[in-house]
């Protein structure tokens, strides 16, 4: 244990630069977390998801769906089988989204991943099991649950809850609580001026 600690401790003459660098990274890290409103990811409020404008279409469609009053994004998109799984999945997913977003790798049309599908599907079942599993039938028909649940629900319920048009541009004018611009006004002015000069 001590050896490990020692191994990680930088040699004396590197100490200062290393600590400074680490400090910078730590600071930057905090800044990133602050900027991207990371704290909000611990909550279940749908507004958090629209921290990125790329999530706006999903927000807007959800916001107009019958599920708005009954299910938040996380009710569907995060596993609810146990608490650990919930936050593990959130973190993993969140990191992927954030890095894709920052790297400008988001496609025009976002597709839910297979893993995510399973999560959502199980959440549909979680809420709707009353309607899906007739205990009487279940007792008599061993595969009853499987037979009613082996296709993702939205193969039939295609409009639940995001509708069928899927594109970053599908709801251009929807009222979505997007974050305010982090760029101060003077900076915007400055950017415009320099751009004109560059003409």
């Amino acid at each position, binding site marked *: 244990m001590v050896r490990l600690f020692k191994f990680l401790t930088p040699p004396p003459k590197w100490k200062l630069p290393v600590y400074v660098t680490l400090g910078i990274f730590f600071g930057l890290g905090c800044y990133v977390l602050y900027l991207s409103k990371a704290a909000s990811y611990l909550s279940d409020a749908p507004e958090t998801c629209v921290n990125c404008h790329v999530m706006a279409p999903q927000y807007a469609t959800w916001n107009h769906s019958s599920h708005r009053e009954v299910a938040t994004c996380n009710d569907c998109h995060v596993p609810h089988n146990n608490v650990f799984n919930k936050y593990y999945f959130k973190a993993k997913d969140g990191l992927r989204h954030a890095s894709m977003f920052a790297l400008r790798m988001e496609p025009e049309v976002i597709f839910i991943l297979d893993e995510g599908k399973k999560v959502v599907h199980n959440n549909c079942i979680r809420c709707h099991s*009353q309607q899906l599993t007739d205990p009487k039938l279940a007792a008599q028909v061993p*595969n009853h649950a499987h037979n009613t649940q082996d296709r993702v629900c939205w193969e039939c319920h295609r*409009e639940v809850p995001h509708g069928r048009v899927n594109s970053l541009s599908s709801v251009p004018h929807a009222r979505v609580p997007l974050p305010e611009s982090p760029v101060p006004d003077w900076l915007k002015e400055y950017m415009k001026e320099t751009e004109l000069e560059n003409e």
Partner: protein
Amino acid sequence: ASSIMERRAESVYAYTPQVEHGQWEPRNEVWGENFPREFQSYYKTADTIFRSKYNGNAMIDMLEVDPRLVVLWAGYGFSKDYNQGRGHYYAVEDIRNTLRTGGPKNENDGPMPNTCWTCKSPDVPRLMNEIGVAEFYKGKWAGKGHEVVNPIGCADCHDAETMNLRISRPALIEAFERQGKDINKASHQEMRSLVCAQCHVEYYFNKKRTGAEGVPYLTFPWDKGMDVEAMEEYYDEIDFKDWTHALSKAPMLKAQHPGYEVYLKGIHADRGVSCADCHMPYKSEGGQKFTDHHIQSPLNNVANSCQVCHRQETDNLIKNVYTRQDQIIENRDKLEELLVRAHVEAKKAWDLGATEEEMKPVLKMIRHAQWRWDYAAASHGGSFHAPTEIGRVITTGVERAQEARIALVRIFHKYGFEGEVPYPDIATKAKAQEFIGLPIDKLKKEKEEFKKNILPQWDKKAKEREATYQVKM
């Protein structure tokens, strides 16, 4: 509040099975004791009120609607009687009543083989299990009339122990095997179509099956593929014909309801939508979803059938279906007219003295043209299930029918005939049947006698047999 309590009580009500019955129980009422929702909805297939533009639950006399069919099928049973299919509830009643099965006077009499029963009843798997498959297919249709009395039902599609979907008859399994496919590997979703594909498919009676020579063995002609060309090639290669046309003498093929084959070519199949999704959608009752067993035209139930997937208005969706049907039927009707002409013109050529050799290529074209027409026409719902494919098939039929007629004009030329062969007066079913020389009154009389004398015997025997079953009703 009290209604909510009631509803919840319904769904948590503890289950006690009402009856325990065997795997081959043919009586739907018995299964229905355990599954009242499914049974009651199944029973609605007895309803005959709804009519859509071309289909629906009603009994529609197709020969009356379209007397050209009489001429197309001259010399074959279908020219006597043909109705647009109706609910499963009527399967046994309708095969008993149709003039096609004639008026047999005893168990060895009548025009049809026993194989005809195969797709009409859950008594069939029972009987096959008791006496063997080839033995079942053997003999005349009248031979097993007293055995097959329950209309299509639970045992046709379900395993009694698990209620899983199952294939209850050999023909489909055998066809899969010959194609090198294992039907046991079918997914649950595929099974939701394959149970229908036991019956809603093109078939023929193979009398040359090794081990069962002479027995009209129910066979699906899919060895080369399931599209119209592949099946045509299959039949050509084994030199099969269903009958010889009474006018043209062409060696004809009859296409019977290739519903599953056509469906496979459509966009819905491409997207994994199954027959049951449209014809047996879920229904909610008492807070529970169950499968609506009222199998019928989805146009009588657009809400549960189409609208879970499509958000359009009911009228719009129905219009979509009708548009496709209209687009097809216009040309299908034209093709029928051309085929009528081809048959009467071919007859004229024979009358003029044309030789076998001259006629052979012409008759082959007529055979192919009509096969393509029938593939499109017999597949009820096909104009919607796969409109682009049916459109394609009709075009190839028109091309061939006309090619035959061109060749016929050449033959006329050779034998010095100048004029045009007049189109027969077949404005009604009666006129058309008279034109092909069908003794319709005689057929009807025979049928009446059969119904008076034979049917009561069958029912009596069946009642006695069922009374010996362990589970009583």
